[in-house]
């Protein structure tokens, strides 16, 4: 590539083009104005989405990254612009989402002087980024951007922040771009050790009651087919973490459901009966394990992981297989014997029956008066032919939707798992819609979380993003209220909300909306929403004191999962 004399700002945009960036989420301001000015000339190649708050931009970038597998990109100005990104950056860090955040910074001679809108962005974001870097010299700009994309997207992905001083944006350089393909001190992925695979295969062949647990690592590695091939050869039941959801179709005969606090009865209870746990691309989060000392007590554990620091971090493993699931799973499949575990699988089906009777039926086909969240979720999933991208906010609605929404394709679940960020849903849905233009995006939010970022309805309207928002209104901070009911003696301390007229608000943003309060209206309401060509909000007024079950009470063992209060 021949060099070309450009400004730092132009170099930023040209570099992004080299990285194949087609969408940027952001919010301008003084310290990033030169970059915005350069962007103005490239509106044909790069779509910029002006959000209503930087938090909206960063969650949108996360949603985009989740459905595309590519880095989400956001721009923000210095000081308050950059600090408004922090929640989303922390969210992306804990959920391993590739992000490249570019923040403007005061001019380099002013650094450290408490200049107008100066904040120590590098210091603030250091604990929540995979890498961050301040650019104070124009020559290093292309290389820094190349490094940023490489680090964000490789190995275990994560967010990076590039803080670019304003004077650098004006300076000129001879621009030449070279993609980064290696860094001496950074090995994104280790080669799979065939001996470890053999050891793992031996344990698998010997196991009577093996259970496979998969997480987002499978989705990140694009190893969905490899996972399927492995379980189909071995007949091993497979359960998923919240972030692993959608990697295996919901109706796959070996899919035995969700793990963890509000997961399914079978996989939780059977974890402690299994004699072998094969964990693939998951990290034994405490919401999955419950009390660690009584977790999987009868099982040998195989952990297949791309990040060496995760192996033995929470649970002691018998065999750790380092490397991407894309590479390790086929090697394992080759080494194991064909098998069937029908009696063992039947035990899960028996649990399903109990759960169906005690919980699922009542949630999804209730007969009592009052709409449930479960039936709303079931209805939306059905009307979307179980093929939509599911986006959720945080709370009861998130757990209910994850339990009852059905999936046929991977990369169809967008949620804040590790950080549990309320306000995530609506902005993440717009990002997901931009990343998956031809798919239906259904976003479930609670009345609490919706009010944290509902200003993004403005962004949705301006960009005509056809997201379907289903607001499950229980007039409470539902999940907290549930805990208050179960563990704090029904002392509902500051969880009841006096809500605005959501329909009027949504209409105020120019988005059609409809409110459903009775069961008879639900089906038609959902149908109308799905048929509408464009953004739409459906408010479903649900039971005020509906709870999410089953539940592994905090600090309890997974086998102490309860089905009802």
């Amino acid at each position, binding site marked *: 590539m021949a060099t070309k004399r450009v400004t730092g700002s132009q170099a930023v945009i040209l570099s992004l083009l080299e990285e194949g960036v087609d969408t940027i989420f952001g919010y301008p301001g003084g310290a990033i104005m030169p970059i915005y000015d350069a962007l103005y000339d490239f509106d044909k190649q790069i779509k910029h989405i002006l959000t209503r708050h930087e938090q909206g931009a960063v969650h949108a970038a996360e949603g985009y990254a989740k459905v595309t597998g590519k880095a989400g990109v956001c721009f923000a100005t210095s000081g308050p612009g950059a600090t408004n990104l922090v929640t989303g950056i922390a969210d992306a860090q804990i959920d391993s989402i590739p992000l490249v955040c570019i923040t403007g910074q005061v001019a380099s001679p002013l650094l450290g002087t408490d200049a107008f809108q100066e904040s120590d962005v590098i210091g603030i974001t250091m604990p929540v980024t995979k890498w961050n870097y301040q650019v104070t010299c124009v020559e290093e700009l292309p290389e820094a951007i190349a490094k940023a994309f490489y680090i964000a997207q490789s190995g275990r992905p994560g967010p990076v922040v590039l803080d670019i001083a304003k004077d650098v944006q004006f300076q000129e350089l001879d621009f030449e771009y070279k993609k980064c393909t290696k860094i001496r*001190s950074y090995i994104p992925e280790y080669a799979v050790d065939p001996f470890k695979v053999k050891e793992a295969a031996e344990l698998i062949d010997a196991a009577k009651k093996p259970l496979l647990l998969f997480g987002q690592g499978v989705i990140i590695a694009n190893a969905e087919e490899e996972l399927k091939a492995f379980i189909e050869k071995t007949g091993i039941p497979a359960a998923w973490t919240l972030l692993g959801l959608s990697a295996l179709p919901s109706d796959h005969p070996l899919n035995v459901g969700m793990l963890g606090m509000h997961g399914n009865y079978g996989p939780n209870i059977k974890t402690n009966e299994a004699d072998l746990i094969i964990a693939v691309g998951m990290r034994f989060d405490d919401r999955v394990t419950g009390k660690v000392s009584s977790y999987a007590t009868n099982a040998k554990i195989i952990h297949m992981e791309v990040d060496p620091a995760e192996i033995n971090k929470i649970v002691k493993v018998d065999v750790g297989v380092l490397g991407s699931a894309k590479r390790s799973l086929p090697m394992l499949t080759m080494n194991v014997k064909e098998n069937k575990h029908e009696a063992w699988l039947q035990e899960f089906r028996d649990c399903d029956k109990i759960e169906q009777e005690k919980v699922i039926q009542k949630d999804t086909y209730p007969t009592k008066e009052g709409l449930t969240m479960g039936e709303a979720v079931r209805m939306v999933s059905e009307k979307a032919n179980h093929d939509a991208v599911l986006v959720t906010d945080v709370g009861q609605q998130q757990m209910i939707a994850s339990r009852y929404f059905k999936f046929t394709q991977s990369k169809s679940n967008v949620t804040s798992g590790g950080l549990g960020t309320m306000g995530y849903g609506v902005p993440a849905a717009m990002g997901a819609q931009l990343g998956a233009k031809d798919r239906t995006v259904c976003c479930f939010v609670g009345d609490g979380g919706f009010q944290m970022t509902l200003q993004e309805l403005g962004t949705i309207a301006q960009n005509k993003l056809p997201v379907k928002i289903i607001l499950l209104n229980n007039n409470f901070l539902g999940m907290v209220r549930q805990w208050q009911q179960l563990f704090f003696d029904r002392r509902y301390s500051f969880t009841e909300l006096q809500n605005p007229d959501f329909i009027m608000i949504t209409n105020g943003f120019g988005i059609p909306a409809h409110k459903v309060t009775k069961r008879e209206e639900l089906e038609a309401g959902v149908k109308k929403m799905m048929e509408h060509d464009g953004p739409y909000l459906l408010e479903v007024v649900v039971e005020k004191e509906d709870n999410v079950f089953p539940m592994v009470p905090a600090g309890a063992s997974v086998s102490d999962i309860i089905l009802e209060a």
Partner: protein
Amino acid sequence: MKQEFIITVYSENNIGLLNRLTINFTRRKINIESLTVSASAIQGISKFTIVINETEERVKKVVGQLEKIVDVLKAFYHTNDEMVFQELALYKVPTEALYESDKVEHMVRNSGARILEITKEFTVIEKTGHKEETKQLFDDLSQFGVLQFIRSGRIAITRDPIERLSEFLKERDALLEAMD
């Protein structure tokens, strides 16, 4: 059981790295007993020597997290037995004390310390050794009034006959080569 461990981190010489490293201790509420940063024998590579008091299990996990930092090449941990280590201490005592008797001089000589500088008012003594040794000299000198005292962070090298980082770098270069 908690005991003293020496963590050695080899890294690229980049700004902000110290902060990135120490965050890992802070967030786990692990106190850093001593910290030294310097160049290593390999050009361009810095070496951090960090002393903490922890259980081996926790040390292992922290080291795993340190190695995840993009600019870190490699981190090792060792017990004190596995390393040769020293600290440097400086003591400032009133010069009078040297005139009154030969006690100070004896102390300096017997402890293998040396005198760096003598002025009319004060004398600066230097001693290298383990913490207990430099502390012992401090206690001994105390009768004359120690005006100032400072001890450096620990520096340490392994008892391994080979430089493990060099081996590691060779492997790393081969790995990077293979990535092309």
